[in-house]
């Protein structure tokens, strides 16, 4: 039944310490890896497919399907690679940090299983450089796993080999984009790559590679241990499993909660985050990081999963909501977001390097009371150029989402900046 089990956070301790290998194994850790290594690799992929696990990094792509694109068997090219995407840089997102700081062996076990499924020889944890506590905990967990014979040669005496390394990045949003991450790991600028070829057949150094978000991976041991039906039973909706939902902004109790997939935005906001701080009114929220469309009051009963949030005109994204209150300016908020995207753009394609900085300047002018009525149509028109298909990656399409939806839901606030020639909140 949904709500009974919390497979992602069951080992997370309230005191902020992390279980070492011994404690992790006492709680059943690495049993799933042992079980998986005895299965044929395609069987593991099939199991993940049946579970309906979808990518928690924001895009929601079916995980098992992604793995099934990797060539396996005796004719497959080697070495093959797995990269855990731990470059958590989507503004408003802080969920993978909890998993890596609080239960580092869960990620390692997950990566052992995923590596087995795609027959990867080398696995990297691509971690953002600012997550120093995660780095410390993962390094120490990796050393423990190597000493125990769970990594390296003949892992778990299975006859298989797997090397696993931690790569610490140096801070750039683009590195979290799937193909940007590949370039970054190869030691190049993290520009995105043209697809095809897709990473599943030609990724790191031209070899088959899977890039997978940390939270997505951490669901895999539970699926292997308990089966696809168990995983589906954790969720309120067709998208299986639990989800780490979060809330930031001026709510009473900002935080993270592992809840059944498909929990409503209202339950997260009102019950778990405690609602708005006293004296403040709710204006809207970005459901899953900076690059998702605003949802407003009328959408609060939407179930937070990949399908339902999309029906409401947004995306679940990372599932960590950013909440706007009535004492913060929606134009200022969107100006802040657009500035972020303009700054972090790699400059590879025109809609992004040209369009984002232009829109950012226009929003700053609006916020400063120097906007003209035609700006609003310019901006709405501009966001169309940032749509998927016009760019190599999802950065500009993501930047369009908060802006286009703010123009829709907060139009009167934009207009007040123009008529009053100032920010009404300043």
């Amino acid at each position, binding site marked *: 039944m949904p709500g009974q089990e919390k497979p992602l956070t069951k080992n997370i301790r309230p005191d902020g310490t992390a279980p070492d290998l011994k404690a992790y194994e006492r709680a059943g850790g690495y049993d799933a890896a042992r079980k998986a290594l005895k299965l044929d690799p395609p069987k593991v992929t099939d199991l993940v497919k049946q579970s309906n696990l979808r990518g928690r990094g924001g895009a929601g792509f079916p995980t098992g399907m992604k793995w099934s694109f990797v060539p396996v068997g005796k004719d497959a090219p080697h*070495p093959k690679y797995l990269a855990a995407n731990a470059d*958590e*840089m*989507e*503004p*408003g*997102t*802080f969920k*993978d*940090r909890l998993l890596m700081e609080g239960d580092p062996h869960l990620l390692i076990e997950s990566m052992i299983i995923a590596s087995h499924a795609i027959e990867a020889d080398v696995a*990297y944890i691509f971690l*953002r*450089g*600012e*997550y*120093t*506590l995660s780095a410390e905990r993962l390094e120490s967990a990796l050393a423990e796993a190597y000493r125990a014979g769970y990594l390296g040669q003949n892992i778990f005496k299975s006859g298989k080999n797997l*090397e696993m*390394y931690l*790569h*610490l*990045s*140096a*801070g*750039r*949003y683009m590195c979290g984009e799937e193909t940007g991450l590949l370039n*970054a*790991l*190869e*030691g*190049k*600028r*993290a520009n995105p790559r043209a697809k095809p070829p897709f990473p599943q057949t030609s990724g790191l*150094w031209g070899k088959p590679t899977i890039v997978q978000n940390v939270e997505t991976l951490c669901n895999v041991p539970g699926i292997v241990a308990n089966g696809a039906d168990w995983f589906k039973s954790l969720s309120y909706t067709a998208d299986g499993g639990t989800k780490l939902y*979060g*809330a*930031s*902004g*001026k709510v009473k109790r*900002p*935080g*993270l909660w592992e809840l059944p997939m498909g929990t409503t935005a209202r339950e997260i906001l009102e019950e778990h985050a405690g609602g708005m701080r006293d004296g403040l009114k709710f204006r809207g929220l*970005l459901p899953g990081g*900076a690059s998702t469309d605003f949802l407003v009051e009328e959408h609060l009963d939407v179930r937070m999963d990949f399908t339902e949030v999309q029906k409401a005109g947004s995306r679940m994204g990372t599932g*960590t909501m*950013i*909440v*706007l*209150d009535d004492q*913060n300016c929606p134009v*200022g*908020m969107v100006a*802040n*977001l657009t500035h*972020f995207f303009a*700054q*972090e753009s*790699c400059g590879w394609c025109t809609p992004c390097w040209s369009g984002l900085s232009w829109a950012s300047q226009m929003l700053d002018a609006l916020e400063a009371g120097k906007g003209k009525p035609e700006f609003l149509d310019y901006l709405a028109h501009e966001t169309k150029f940032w749509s998927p298909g016009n760019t190599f990656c999802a950065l500009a399409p993501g930047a369009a989402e908060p802006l286009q939806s703010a123009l829709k839901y907060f139009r009167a606030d934009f207009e007040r900046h123009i008529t009053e020639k100032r920010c009404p909140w300043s």
Partner: protein
Amino acid sequence: MSAGDRMLTPEEQKEIEAEMAHYPLKQSVCIDALKIVQRHRGWISDETLQEIAQFLQMSPDQLDSVATFYNLIFRQPVGRHVVFYCDSVSCWLLGCNRLRDNLSERLGVRPGQTTADGKFTLLPIVCLGACDHAPVMMVDSELHRDVTPQTVGAILEKYT
């Protein structure tokens, strides 16, 4: 002395070589190399860039295209400590502009500048992934959460 005469220290070389074992190509280690050398020298000067490039058999320009890409690689000198205030959306909602102004006033510098005594450089940084504790700042690699005008002074005093 020409660039060819200068060398990375044996310690720097050893640390870079340890990372090299993780990648099939030498050049793939370049971001690690930049971080390692920056840890020893504080920042990446043009001369340092040439030394690393030579060690990795890259052209300095190729390496610079990587060095300039990252927020945490400094191609200009910085102070003994770098104070990063998060200026992304959750911290903005919780008043990061006031934190920026407070830091600016206490340190007597604008963002991007270093204090006259060479102690602190003040820089903005993108979301630090601690949004439930906004506003946040990071000094060097240490995160400080739920920063208020009352606590910011004591945080800075910790660094000498």
